[in-house]
């Protein structure tokens, strides 16, 4: 129920709607809950609404940390 996915904003439309790319499929969603959404942003999509922006810098940091945390001392040696 709380499932949501990261989607890329392709184009802003009228009335706080936006066209987004959902894994290759274009869909119109409501972006009124997030301020200042721009084309090119990634947003978290839930039941047809963007509920927050995805911070790409933080995503890269988490991925880097994941790789680091997975490194075993013996494997690294």
């Amino acid at each position, binding site marked *: 129920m*709380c499932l949501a996915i990261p989607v890329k904003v392709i184009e802003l439309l009228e009335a706080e709607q936006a066209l987004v790319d959902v894994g290759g499929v274009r869909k119109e969603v409501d972006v009124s*809950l997030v*301020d200042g959404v721009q084309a090119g942003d990634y947003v978290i999509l*839930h039941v047809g609404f963007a509920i927050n922006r995805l911070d790409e810098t933080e995503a890269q940091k988490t991925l880097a940390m994941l790789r680091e945390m*997975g490194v075993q001392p013996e494997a690294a040696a």
Partner: protein
Amino acid sequence: MKYVDEFRDGKVARSLAQTIAAEVRPERRYHLMEFCGGHTHAISRYGLRDLLPPEIRFIHGPGCPVCVLPIGRIDSAIELARDHGVILCSYGDTLRVPASERMSLLRAKAEGADIRMVYSSADALKIARDNPEREVVFFAIGFETTTPPTAVALRQARTEGLKNFSVFANHVLTPSAIQNILESPEVRELGTIPLDGFIGPSHVSTIIGSRPYEFFAEEFQKPVVIAGFEPLDVLQSVLMLVRQLNEGRAEVENQFSRAVTREGNLKAQALVAEVFELRDRFEWRGLGEVPYSALRIREAYRDLDAEVRFDLPYRSVPDHKACECGTILRGLKQPQDCKVFGTVCTPDNPLGSCMVSAEGACAAYYTYGQFKGSAEVAEAS
């Protein structure tokens, strides 16, 4: 899909699991409650239990909105569609939840009630616009993630002056449920549920932020790590919890920093506060009546409240006697401890709500074949 696939890398998952295995202390157990059904689903779907050392024990929490919705609420929704003749718009998840007298929304629909599955509250508004001669009710359920979209629909209906639209609001609150679990006698005194820390909600937290959990970390000395829903997110959060517990810390940490801040989505919070207020009490399946744990529509929007418009009384209905949904939702039992699990009760023919939703513990165990891992097997291993 970008920002999804990277967090499902099997190689990184295996090495993370090895790091966790190397850091757990063999003399202790780590009982971690994943509050959200989304995490329960991810743990089963990606076989994370099998990757992790036996010292890590997951306790499945009540964060599955379909599971915690009591029978009485589904009965009311059916009453709206059948007796008041409204078009009832519902998210797909609730359609198959068993109600009283072997009824469900799906069965009521088969018998002629006008019940329509919608993807979004915006779809319900559109149905109201397209059917001005009919009453249209949106059956709103869900935690904090799903509440803002309902608030948007209510405000939109007000702006447009849509007279035939109303909302049957059943939105519930995560912090109240966590507090209820922490204050339950089983956790507090009896020690029936050993509970060492929480894997905190992903998308609920994008809205409410990480701040509401600080109270639990401080007051109850339980670490909380807010985690994304992908398998690597869950594994990393388990490692962060293991480290906190090993070091004797009880803090709120945010693994899902790509979407969660301490403050959350303030715009969504403000809108929810404009439209909704706290209910004094609300019945949850499994937890019973929990004070200040749900929302109702504020006075200013009361004319759009289906409970008021149709004068819906609430009747509490006990669960099926054989169904252990309630005890499973409180973390007291595992799905396979239930006598009807996988026999009488299956996803095709669910007896209890935990078998209906993909996020329900029973459905997750059934679908992904986690029949082993019962308490006895885990103890023996």
